[in-house]
């Protein structure tokens, strides 16, 4: 009789008390907690590489959106062979605060900031050696600086999230208002100065591709040069740019393993990744086993058949742009593809500037691509043109292309520009010619500071179009009005080319962010 009562009573008591509190603690199996991640150096390194991953991982449209913001708002852009889908309305200057590109780019850059802040906050928890921790912190601070550099050029003054957000209670950060542009630059400069101090000059072996002190100096120089232009026009910055970039040009090139390759197209080859001309790049690799780790950019930029697969070419460069190059210039057809052999048909495809379309020479001059568009441009081609593997080609949106963010020729041209702006035109010209000589372009003879300025600006277009800098160069030079004035409305579908307005010097703050954060203010004019 006792047994029948005692057993269940024990059971009752057991389930009521003993296990109560602890039992409801959640054990995670398919993810980790921050404490686990930052318990050793391996975790710290994986979290640091997680910051790199934020620039390229799925959804892989975002890197394309970033590219659209950096490369579409200029005079030589028109629809691509397949239309203008993904670059609308940016190439016609008709963007709105609700456009997906703007919305996603904003959140994507802040995702990088957040991942970097997490690494910065916990590095010393993972390793006891401060010097070791500082390397990871320096890498993270570089990423944070670059994200803010993109943000400040896209949107102007933006909220500065300086520490890790790990709780929604941190309302001062989550709902922070915009900081002045100068404050953002100061923050970027501090991060990059920390990075150049604590990172090795360059990386080797399996660490190749990580951010080095050389990359930090290069970016810092470019930040100074940009800050010297509009809207900040900080006069000291030209000199600081000269100082910083000089550290890595000339004698510094060996120290930081930088230089120009002999052949322009080799720089972009997939068989020659992370060569000494690449200052820093985000890397992509599609494989049979890790799908979705390729990048979609070439799919939207390459013309159909260039590497044997169909594409959806949404961006074109006008023949006027191609005409800027001298006929001997090796960069011309690498940048704007005026002719190619379509694979697998073997047809010869040639761009016809009179009808603004590619035509199929082999098949008797028929127009290639979307005939609904009266104006399409030459396709952009500065990527490794490796044919896709058969499996990859089945869904040809995953290319193993590295996204080069900065090249050594950019460093040379930035230094040339800074030297010219500080009155050292004579020292600037050799740097300009070094870039031109490699491309088999004619040597530029010494002229006035103004002449040199316009030559350097033109050279940046010839050398760097499509490399995340064109729109920002136009903004800092204050030449957007001239750009728009030089455009033919027919370049834009339905002639939807907006007239110049001062608001176009910045993109609008995403509507989604204004809705979520009452402390944000829309940029003037939007």
């Amino acid at each position: 009789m006792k047994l029948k009562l005692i057993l269940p009573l024990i059971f009752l008591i057991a389930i009521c008390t003993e296990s109560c509190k602890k039992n409801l603690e959640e054990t995670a199996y398919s993810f980790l907690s921050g404490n686990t991640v930052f318990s050793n150096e391996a975790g710290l390194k994986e979290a640091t590489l997680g910051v790199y991953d934020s620039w390229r991982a799925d959804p892989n449209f975002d890197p394309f959106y970033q590219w659209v913001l950096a490369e579409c708002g200029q005079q030589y852009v028109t629809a691509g062979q397949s239309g203008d889908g993904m670059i609308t309305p940016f190439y016609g200057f008709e963007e709105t605060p609700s456009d997906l590109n703007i919305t996603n780019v904003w959140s994507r850059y802040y995702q990088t900031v957040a991942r970097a802040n997490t690494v910065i906050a916990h590095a010393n928890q993972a390793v006891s050696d401060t010097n070791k921790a500082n390397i990871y912190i320096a890498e993270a601070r570089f990423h944070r600086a670059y994200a803010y550099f993109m943000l400040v050029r896209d949107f102007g003054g933006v909220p500065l999230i300086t520490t890790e957000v790990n709780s929604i209670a941190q309302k001062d950060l989550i709902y922070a208002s915009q900081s002045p542009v100068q404050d953002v630059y100061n923050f970027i400069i501090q991060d990059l100065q920390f990075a150049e101090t604590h990172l090795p000059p360059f990386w080797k072996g399996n660490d190749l591709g990580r951010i080095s002190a050389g990359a930090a100096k290069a970016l810092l120089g470019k930040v100074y040069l940009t800050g010297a232009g509009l809207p900040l026009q900080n006069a000291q910055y030209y000199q600081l740019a000269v100082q910083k970039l000089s550290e890595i040009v000339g004698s510094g090139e060996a120290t930081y393993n930088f230089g120009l390759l002999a052949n322009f197209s080799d720089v972009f080859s997939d068989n020659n990744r992370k060569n000494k001309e690449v200052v820093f790049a985000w890397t992509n690799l599609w494989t049979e086993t890790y799908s979705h780790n390729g990048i979609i950019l070439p799919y939207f930029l390459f013309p159909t058949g260039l590497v044997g697969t169909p594409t959806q070419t949404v961006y074109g460069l006008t023949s006027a742009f191609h005409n800027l190059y001298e006929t001997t210039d090796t960069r011309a057809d690498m940048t704007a593809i005026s002719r190619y052999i379509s694979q697998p048909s073997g047809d010869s495809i040639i761009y016809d500037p009179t009808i603004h379309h590619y035509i199929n020479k082999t098949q008797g001059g028929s127009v290639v691509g979307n005939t609904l568009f009266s104006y399409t441009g030459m396709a952009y081609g500065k990527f490794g043109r490796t044919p896709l593997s058969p499996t990859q080609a089945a869904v040809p949106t995953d290319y193993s292309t590295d996204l080069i963010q900065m090249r050594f020729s950019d460093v040379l041209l930035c230094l040339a520009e800074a030297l010219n702006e500080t009155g050292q035109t004579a020292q600037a010209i050799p740097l300009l010619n070094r870039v031109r000589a490699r491309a088999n372009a004619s040597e530029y003879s010494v002229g006035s500071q103004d002449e040199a300025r316009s030559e350097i600006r033109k050279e940046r277009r010839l050398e760097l179009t499509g490399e995340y800098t064109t729109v920002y160069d136009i903004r800092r030079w204050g030449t957007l009005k001239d750009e728009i004035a030089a455009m033919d409305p027919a370049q834009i579908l339905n002639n939807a080319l907006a007239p110049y307005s001062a608001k176009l010097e910045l993109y609008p703050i995403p509507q989604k962010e204004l809705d979520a954060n009452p402390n944000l203010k829309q940029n003037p004019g939007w």
Partner: protein
Amino acid sequence: MSKKILPFLEQKKKALLFFSLLFFSLFTFAQQKAIVNGTVYSLDNVPLVGVSVRVKGTNNGTTSDAQGRFKIQANKGATLVLSFVGYEEKEIEVNDAGNVGTIQLVSTTSTLGGVVVVGYGSQNKRSLASATSEVSAKDFQHAVINTLDQALQGRTSGVQVVNTSGEPGAQVVVRIRGNNSLSGDNQPLYVIDGFPVAPYTEGLTQGSKPGLKNAYSQNGLYGINPDDIASMVVLKDAAATAIYGSRGANGVILITTKSGKTGEGKIELRNNYSVGTIRNPVKMMTGKQYAEIVNETNALSGNAPIFGNIDTITTNTDWFNATTRQSYREDASAIFSGGTAKSLYYISGNYVKDIGNVIGSSGNKKGSIRANLSSKINNWYSIKGQFSFARQFTNRAFSTQMRWPTGAGFLDLLRQSPTVPVDYLGFNAYGFPGDSKQFWFGNPVNELNSKIDVVKNDNSIVNIENEIKILNSLKLVVSLGGTQNLSRRQIFLDATTVLGQPKNGVGYNFLANTYSYNANAYLNYDKLFSDIHKLDLTLGAEYNAQTLEETGASSSNFAIPYFGINNIGSALSQEISSYREDRKLQSAFFRGNYSYKGKYILNTSLRVDGASPFAENKKYGLFPTAGVAWNLDKEEFMKNVSFISTSKIRASYGETGSQAISPYSSLQQFVNGVYPTGGNNNFTLTLYPSGLGNADLSWEKTKQFDIGTDISVLNNKLSFSFDYYNKLTSDLLQPRAIPSQSGYTSITDNYGVIQNRGLEFSISADIISRKNMELTTQFNISRNKNVLVNLGDRTAPTYISIGNNLIGGVSGILVPGQEIGQFYGYQLTGLVQTKDFDADGKPSYPYPGPAAVQHPGAVKFQDTNKDGKIDKADRQVLGNSSPDFTFGWSSNFRWKNFSVNLFITGSEGNKVLDITRALLNDGIVIWGGQVTNQTQDWYGKRWTPENPINDPRYPGVLAGPPFVITDATSAMIEDGSYVRLKSLTFLYAFPKLKVVKGLTLSVTATNLLTITKYAGFDPEVSTFNQSILQQGIDYAGYPTQRSYTFGLSCNF
């Protein structure tokens, strides 16, 4: 407490021993006593067979025979105890004549003052203060149903049941008193014989990797054979559901399975065979008609005709005919049951084969077995066990992984080009002469025949319930049990299919294993003091733990074509993933019921639930309720009102909760990725935070007030029930957008309030109850209004798009302060006529997009804000998917051995967004690289210059969709009201034969008649089934069928 009871029990034990000896001697003495005769009937005068009859205080017992008669030796003045499973025990005194005459036993499931199952126990129906309704097995015994939730449709007020599609094994949406949660779960809790089961657990949370969460059962309740159900009790208000605390907010359905009955073993066999056809087939344009419209389309854009001489077109493929067939269904059950006074057994087996109307492997096969065993070990201890196992193979007709070309299943199939021969395979997108041959043609017949998409489920439930009688009025019930649902989904698309072709074959293999344990124990004290005060107290605790484990593998590029789904490792491109999550719930509960002379009733309960998915300091929730009831008929002043048999007024208030969020939602999670490093790009693992935790994440809370009355009149011949309720659900669990400067875009948070208010009425009548003739009827009607009271500080409307479909834009709107379920889009005003253009060809009406695409026959939009142009600002509310009321009516008529059963359900005042019909009649035959054939109906009625109609449902030939308009339009909105003769059964029960005791033949017609204005396939539709924001949308669903079932059942 135990200290007091134990010594007492020790004494009692000795006393028992003493009395046993005494009884033994009395037994010998009783041999000389008289024989007492009696007959035992149920309340509806059916003789009860196998009733245990015992002389109180002796071992002397017998059972009633086939006519309900019994003989027993007993003293005059002795007391007979009659007990029978499913009926209330009855004691009767032997009168001076040594007779007991006719005795009636009251069924425990009877509505007439019987006992009804409630959470953790049972309660006398008259002492309930809650809104509880019951569906018994006989209500749906002839209906053709796959899963038990279908049996609830139209049977009881306050419960809305929608069959989401006509596909065998499809999900069923069950809503008790409306939707409480925006993004959480709105399904009721199912409790089978005291054991809680989650119907669709696998689909509720998101895995860490894309591609997971694909292994699921179509309908998680498949494991319960409807034949095994004795009754289903629906707990609707908080007074009844609060005992289930955090799982009670959406209502609770308590399912009691059958058990054996005392007496000779019984064998029952049943076999049903059904055939069915699609209720309303659709005729698409013929090859010639299609070619004619294609040419007209081309002419619109100034191009030459594609089809030269239309008269030479001979290919005329009717894809509807080619891909559909007659369905058939076999359903066989065998049941063995019986028992002794001590032990009862019920063993059943069921097999169902359901072959759908769509060709290919579309269909469902399942087998299930169940054993319910119970035994009274001794006079203080009894044990019950339920064991069930079910295996189901469901072949999906339209896989979400399959698309030709858009993934819109039945819609794509209908719209395929009629000029393509039915056996064509290869490159050809349009069936045009001189096609570009760029795309692989998705031949619907081949797609359906070649693809494999099968979900294989194993479901088992084991539950043991121990009942220990400590005192006469005190018992302890301890239950232990577990469930396991193993779900495997295999998809294979070979290289002849649209998706398989470019990837050279794709295979997916998903495995999900959900297992749970449940343990509960409660003490129940039930005593009547001084014949006045009745006290019924329950105190208990419960623990529940559930784990979900998943593995997913997919691969493509099957270089060796002979290997398929069972060797996906042979393909060159592979991806794998796995996932695990746990959730735990621990609770303590108390229920206290008090009744004064059976007149005044107080019901209270309190539950404390702790659930693991919430934030560290927010895991516990408290869920109280109180209800009062007044049985007026027990008052003196009602004694003279003889036509009223019973009357009760009741009111209750209580709080329940919902915890339908993913585990780990409150924690910050670091997940893994890869990044290529080194000169050759080698993958290195990465880690990064995927979201922000929320240290305040807590319960979704529902407060409910209910007032109701139950009245029966004319000697219980007619009974009514009426309820009004008002439910407020606050702290809704849903994502909240946070500024992405935080690094994250949203968190799971508690905010917002939803209100459900409604009225419920039901009536049941025993109109005729004679020996040879019976007529009973039941009717119920319910109304529910579902309003989004607020969304916290979010005041802007939320636009709802249904994504991944052809319209792609906005279909609904959610506005704080307004009803939920509003469709939103453009109002169409008519069609563009030839005279609507000025001399320069400029349109004289407001239009969207460029003028160039405007032409006669196109649809016209209402310029709501009168700004002269059509844009997003002109959108408006187009209707609501919530019905004004739903109803069900069933009648049963028996004349001698012949019966007719009629069951009608309906819905009134709801709108359906019929995208299917709209896209089949939109005047676009080719668009975006897709062939979109139109119906003959459209062809005949469409706008032409000669037939200048103004009905936007039949536009003229269009070159493409209205520019920039991707949102819903009023042409898609249809009245979804309907009245449906859901089932009509004729049944003949043969007179008793020698061996076969009961032989019954039946014919049932399902979906025989539907009265509706709805122009699509079926007004009873909800393609996006479980989502509250996307209800009432008809998007390419699997059509429903009309079927005829022939049934044969017999028992031995």
